[in-house]
């Protein structure tokens, strides 16, 4: 397990940070979050054209850059810091990982290059209106008909589901339950029988959609009935990625709170000089650094193929869920009344903290997952 980044990784991070500071300042975030799509084709092309970011963790054999979970973690952390509005998590983290974990060689060669290049925006549809993060919540069915499959059911909380070109869908054989009978499929975003609508969300920087499948033709991805394991691995890697994205946002908030405290004067001195403020900042630093340590350890474990990875991924997600939100709460508090206004940027990150707190499973869920992974 690595406990520090290499010089190359640090250099990569600073290039990325400068790029995102330029491409995704709060003015751009505010503009994009108000659109229905939530992202911008031109900006997406830049991200991929200039830095090849969608390709980071995709193997070179499939058109990617062939880096690993640690590099992907760095990308996500910087994107979280900048609150980038782009379908990156949906496409390259969720969908591409699912295809890598479940797909046949031919399928990986078919789908991944365009995802890696950013030409195809993909997403993973797995959760349903019941809001469960485990496979017991999957009710959408895949019926074998003729030479293919037809999907029936409803998916919800689908990241960028209303704008994705390609949807990877988790569904079950009728009559099966839990991990049994699960398969992954690929469906085109404009497939007949598929209706999609954007959901109204608290966090406008992370669009979620509801997808209704009425006899939608779908192509099998990987082996029929055997999707439980690759899907579980996808969830683990996604949790690692999300935890790293979250600590980037948390660190941004922490720094903004410190900057504000040093600037704001009350009673003739900077509020940073009051001990309650100093102690709160020290506590925020502890929270964020602990969450970073957990996120980095999980990414490193993923890179090492550590058998402990599922437990560490859940540990990182649970820790990030609490730290990001708590940091956001403190940041609003430190700003006082102005922190509660629309014009102040804090609420933008607060809302990302809020949605990320729950996305892929909240702290309680992941703590239980961690305990099972470690003790059974």
């Amino acid at each position, binding site marked *: 397990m*690595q*406990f*520090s980044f290499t010089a190359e990784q640090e250099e990569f991070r600073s290039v990325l940070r400068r790029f995102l500071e330029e491409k995704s300042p709060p003015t751009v975030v505010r503009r994009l979050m108000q659109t229905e799509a939530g992202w911008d084709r031109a900006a997406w092309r830049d991200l991929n054209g200039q830095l090849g970011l969608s390709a980071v963790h995709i193997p070179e054999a499939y058109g990617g850059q062939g880096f690993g979970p640690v590099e992907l973690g760095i990308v996500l952390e910087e994107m979280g810091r900048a609150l980038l509005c782009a379908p990156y998590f949906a496409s390259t983290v969720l969908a591409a990982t699912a295809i890598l974990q479940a797909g046949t060689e031919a399928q990986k060669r078919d789908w991944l290059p365009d995802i890696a290049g950013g030409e195809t925006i993909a997403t993973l549809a797995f959760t349903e209106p019941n809001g469960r993060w485990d496979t017991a919540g999957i009710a959408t069915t895949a019926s074998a008909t003729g030479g293919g499959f037809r999907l029936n059911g409803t998916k919800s909380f689908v990241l960028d589901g209303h704008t994705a070109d390609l949807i990877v869908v988790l569904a079950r054989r009728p009559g099966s339950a839990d991990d049994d009978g699960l398969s992954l499929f690929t469906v085109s975003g404009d497939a007949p029988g598929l209706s999609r609508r954007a959901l109204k969300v608290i966090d406008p920087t992370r669009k979620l959609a509801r997808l209704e499948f009425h006899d939608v033709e779908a192509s099998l991805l990987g082996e029929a009935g055997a999707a439980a394991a690759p899907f579980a691995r996808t969830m683990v890697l996604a949790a690692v990625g999300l935890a790293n994205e979250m600590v980037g946002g948390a660190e941004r908030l922490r720094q903004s709170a*410190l900057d504000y*405290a*040093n600037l704001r004067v009350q009673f003739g*001195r*900077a509020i*940073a*000089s009051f*001990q309650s*403020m*100093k*102690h709160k*900042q*020290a*506590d925020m*630093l*502890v929270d964020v*650094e*602990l*969450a970073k*340590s*957990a996120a*980095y*350890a999980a990414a490193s474990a993923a890179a090492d193929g550590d058998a402990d990875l599922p437990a560490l991924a859940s*540990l990182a997600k*649970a*820790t990030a869920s609490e730290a990001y939100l708590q940091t956001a709460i403190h940041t609003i508090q430190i700003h006082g009344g102005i922190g509660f206004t629309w014009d102040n940027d804090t609420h933008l990150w607060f809302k990302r903290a809020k949605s990320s707190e729950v996305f892929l499973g909240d702290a*309680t869920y992941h*703590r*239980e997952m*961690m*305990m099972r992974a*470690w*003790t059974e």
Partner: protein
Amino acid sequence: MTEHTEASVRADVRAWLEANWNPEFGLVEWRNMLIDSGWGVPSWPKAWFGRELPMALEMVVDEEMQRIGAVGVAKTGIRRLAAATLLVHGTDAQKQRFLRRSLTGEDTWCQLFSEPGSGSDLAGAMTRAEFKGNRWVINGQKVWTTSAHHADFGLLLARTDWDRPKHQGLSYFVLDIHQPGVTVQPLRQMNGHASFNQVFFTDADVPPENLVGEVGRGWAVATTTLMHERRGADGISRWGRPTEGKGRVYDEERAETATVMEPYKWYPQRAGRVDLIVQRARETGRFEDPVVRQEIAKLLCLSKSAEWTARRARAAQMQGRPQGPEGSLGKLISSHVARAAARVHTLISGADAMLSGEDGAMDGLIAEILVSVPAGSIAGGTDEIQRNIISERVLGMPKEPRTDNDRPFRDVPKNLVV
């Protein structure tokens, strides 16, 4: 000057160890050999038993010592702090007199800093050192002194000037504990142990050659001692664990370690004994309780993240990079871990958490955790002071407003000391 490489250092020390190491040596005899070879304290100056190796190469020496199972110089207790302090601030005569014997373990040291009236405010020390005739005469009291009951010498911070501002009126001395003017009394704690002492000085004597640094410049010397104390506290070092093996030298090292570590035997309980949590939950049947599982999980998240944060800090240090904020958080974080652990042990133990001794869970060990944890957020720098230090030195926030720094110390409000 020849540049040492990892390979050359490894080859040299390995060769020397293979030619010289023998577990049947006496501890002091072996350590003198090690000191004279330069491998005992390889990062020290060449003039004083060292080879001036950087930290990364010192680790190579350490690896080789471990590989062959060789015992090192005395590093336990306050000896390490005394040696580090004298190396920086001591005169040649002091180094000559004290360094070797602290490295061989022949001399034992204690730290005489805290007083009943000055704990967090260490620089507010009021133990008086007056120069009378041609000797220093010491009067006053120190508290929380580990090992004073078996120490030969103490690192004494005392006040030599009441008219200068606080920090400028302090001086640092090496005090001989074995004299009639020094009385050592154990200090009983709420957990029943008496690991520390009060030390009373009644016209105690310090010869002029035992002044370390200049008169009035004792705070700078004390800062060196404190810096080394902080460094040893990251929880990763092997300090306090004797080398395993059969033979005379191991027996003597074990005895030395046992003596030094005796006051600390409850420290693992003070840290919360996270290692016992899952076992305790299983054996009490509380492991299946969903509420208890969540609390256990929260504790494990905290405890693992704390460990990784310390490793990140250590990695930066090893690479010679400036430490990020993660290096200053260790003590505050471990205090949180201990408190959380005490809470979870209580949840698991239920009513048994009211019992102690043989009636208590694990023969009183759980009870010891519950009554020892309060010390963790106080000893060695309180949580409140840690937060001040973190916010000021790491985050650059304004320092506390001070009213005690720039007037004569005698004019500063103080605690009444009987």
